[in-house]
């Protein structure tokens, strides 16, 4: 890739940042060229972000309908899934999965609630809410 071919496609996912890519400069040598974004990359990044957003939206509906605990919503909002949340919180997967049930979640002891809030990076009070 030559320096004039480095895409500068004002990518929303870069949040105003520029990223370095190695390309052939005018002197014929490879050098680091700042890029404002490339559409192909933006598509796949957005795809991954949107996949979590869709999971969180569906989990929110389920939580409102009482079919799932708010924990499921917060998990996806923190871009995690059950294996990741289990690893981050140091709990077995089956326990995390159990805590996704509203009845079990409602009786969660304070120390586990604090652990989830910490791992998900939210306030303790937020844990019960699906904003």
């Amino acid at each position, binding site marked *: 890739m030559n320096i004039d071919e480095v895409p500068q496609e004002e990518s929303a996912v870069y*949040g105003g940042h520029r990223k370095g890519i*190695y390309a052939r400069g005018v002197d014929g040598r490879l050098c680091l060229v700042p890029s404002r974004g490339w559409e192909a990359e933006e598509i796949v990044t957005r795809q991954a972000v949107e996949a979590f957003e869709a999971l969180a939206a569906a989990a929110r509906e389920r939580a409102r309908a009482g079919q799932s605990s708010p924990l499921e919503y917060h998990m996806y909002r923190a871009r995690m899934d059950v294996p990741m949340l289990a690893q981050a919180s140091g709990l077995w997967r089956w326990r995390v999965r159990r805590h996704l049930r509203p009845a079990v979640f409602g009786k969660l002891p304070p120390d586990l609630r604090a652990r989830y809030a910490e791992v998900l990076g939210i306030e303790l009070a937020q844990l019960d809410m699906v904003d």
Partner: protein
Amino acid sequence: MTDTGFVHQQASHCESGVMAAIVRHYGLPLSEPMAFGLASALAFAYLPCIKLAGLPLVSYRMPPRAILRGLQKPLGFSMRFETFRSPEKGAARLDELLDAGKVVGLQASVFWLPFMPPDFRFHFNAHNLLAYGRDAARGDYLLSDPVLEAPVRCARSDLTKARFARGILAPKGLLYYPASPPREPDWKRVLPAAIRKTARVMLGAPITLIGARGIVWMARAVERLPVADPRASKLYIGHLVRMQEEIGTGGGGFRFLYAAFLEEAARLAVRPALAELAGELVEIGDLWREFALAAARMIRDRDPLDPARLGVLLRAQSAREKTFFTALGKAAK
């Protein structure tokens, strides 16, 4: 506030960027591509048995920490690595080192770094960055994240959370700095050796999932993707493109970065053949970008989803890399 005279320089990949900055700061001028290539960091691996969010592990480089460790031998110095059981101890140790005027490398999770663009904040725990000072009055660290254009500030609590994230590749507060200063090596000796190692990884790994042959395995998996389940298939090919193009690869799955290394190596080791091969690798990188573009167009339904077509592109890449690394191995004899 401490001033260590540290100079921030943007890089394409976090680990090679951090190590090049550390080596430079501690006395030896070193470019990012040189740090990457000298540590033999280029590779390819397709590991379907290791799943990340249900998707296979695909990597275009050696595992994390390969560059942190790999530069010690060629540059004749040793790095000190420290991990911690408790976040408090890890934060206190970092403060102590910074107050002593050291520039310190850190491993952290991208997700918990507030200065990262939100769309890049996934739970990737093996990100690397540098701390070069702290503002004790405001409780901020002065950080140099090599993938960003400028240094940033970060609150103590945020950085500590990122350094002690749990999960796959958990950083455990890892920090590192040289225990002795790096020395200028005999380039004519260390460069061919580093290149031969990369050629060996790409051609002669004991399992065929690693190296140029691994790309065929990946092609096969792509060809088998069901067109009847477009959502899952698109997530799969999107994942491959993310591993190849997203922040930290320098584009084309690190191939452009390694080409820049070969160009520099050609000068330092006085082997002009390497410069020619650098040009060939740039073309291979361009073709990786073509694959990325073809996949992205299918994901957005600009082209019909056609796994077989992507498979053809990948098989061609495997053949090209096989030829390329064979020639590279010979050129570095």
